[in-house]
């Protein structure tokens, strides 16, 4: 439990505006705790889901962006589904991860961030997931060369990991999507 004194006047208004724009009404939280109670990953979090929602309501962006929680959230959407005030907590987590990356905040769970960028790199390049390529990229980014080797070999021997990428024809369209089309409007 975080016992630091929080001054809402120091809250980041731009962050709150962003949440409003994405229709995440963190102010509606009355701390019932159902989000945390149903979270399957809660024991691994450094900030519980209900704390994260309250910190967000105070605009305490920095604490959240530096947390492990935003990276360990598996996006299962149990919290958002069960929230009696219909706060879209899963989208809150999406917004926080995106902000952390855009602001260059070092991810508290670098392996998870490495996975996401490896996965997206593969999509950006081929248009579809290329598993062996993304596994290689993840290993290079994370420095974990031996993890899941046995599993990888098994999957390969069963023909479930293709050596060749599955590429789309509309690569230019995919590149355009990744190039930040629409970003002009700061969404």
């Amino acid at each position, binding site marked *: 439990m975080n016992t630091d004194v929080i001054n809402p006047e120091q809250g980041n208004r731009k962050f709150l505006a962003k949440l409003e724009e994405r229709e995440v009404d963190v102010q509606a939280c009355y701390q019932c705790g159902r989000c945390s109670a149903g979270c399957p990953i809660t024991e691994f979090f450094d900030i519980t889901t209900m704390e994260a929602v309250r910190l967000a309501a105070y605009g305490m962006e920095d604490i959240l962006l530096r947390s492990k929680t935003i990276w360990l959230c598996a996006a299962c959407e149990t919290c958002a589904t069960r929230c009696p005030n219909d706060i879209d907590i899963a989208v809150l987590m999406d917004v926080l991860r995106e902000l952390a990356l855009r602001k260059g905040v070092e991810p508290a769970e670098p392996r998870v961030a490495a996975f996401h960028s490896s996965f997206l790199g593969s999509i950006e390049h081929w248009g579809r997931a290329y598993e062996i390529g993304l*596994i290689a990229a993840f290993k290079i980014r994370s420095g974990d060369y031996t993890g899941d080797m046995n599993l990888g070999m098994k999957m390969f021997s069963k023909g479930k990991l293709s050596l060749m990428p599955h590429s789309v024809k509309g690569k230019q369209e995919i590149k355009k999507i990744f190039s930040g089309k629409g970003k002009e409007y700061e*969404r």
Partner: protein
Amino acid sequence: MKLSYYPGCSLQGTALDYDQSVREFCSLVGVELVEIPDWNCCGASSAHMTRHEVGMRLPMRNLLLAAELGLDILVPCAACFQRLKAAEKSLREAPEYWDVERYQGNCRIIHISTFLASQAINEAIQQRISNLLKGMKLGCYYGCLSLRHPKITGVSNFEQPESLETIVRYVGAEPVPWSHRTECCSGSLTMARPDIARRLVGDLVEAAVRAGADALVTDCPMCQVNVESRQMDMAGGPRLPVYFVTELINAALTGDYPAKQKRLHLVDAGVLSAVMQENHRSREETV
């Protein structure tokens, strides 16, 4: 019946047997599938988790391609289904926001279990069912994304879904009541944090064993590979194979569970063959 088909990336890789079984099932019951030409990855889950714009525009490209075919879209992957639905919602509400002039959206996005549990498919199954799965106890495992968030998926009984149980009953097997049907398998965390994946998978496998399940059955390719692979290095060894729902139906329809399909599992999937053999034997004895 003719449907557009969006297989998604998993079904070209770790779940390629799921793809084969979906296609086989559809040809068995006379449903024609037209694969969406040049479909791309829906981005799940990394895109929507870290880059909102990309996470919306990737599935939107698929929807616009599918709109040209003008058919309802069959989606076997839970994550793809949820992303396509999210994109559809936003396209309908604000097409101009996504630089699309107008989105008619006449094509429904249909998740595989909704399709399989429908009356029409039930009738097609009943016509040729072998009843060889009788007595097989199955834990129906839904995971997350075909259900949540209901404002996206449109599912009403998202805490107590029934579609997989309905299908399991259609094919003459027995669904067991159990606790972890809609719990998370850890999704895309599995590669970065296998320790967390093992914990989540361990819990749900334990719960299914406790409920008396012989195996699990799922409609999510991510759940299937996570739950099988993360049992491999568990103390005491793996306990339950995870069948794709269409794999199970095909076995019931054709009366055959091919050895080459069984070998594609990471966990010994012999229980299905054993149940079928047993039922064969007792049927012959009665005759």
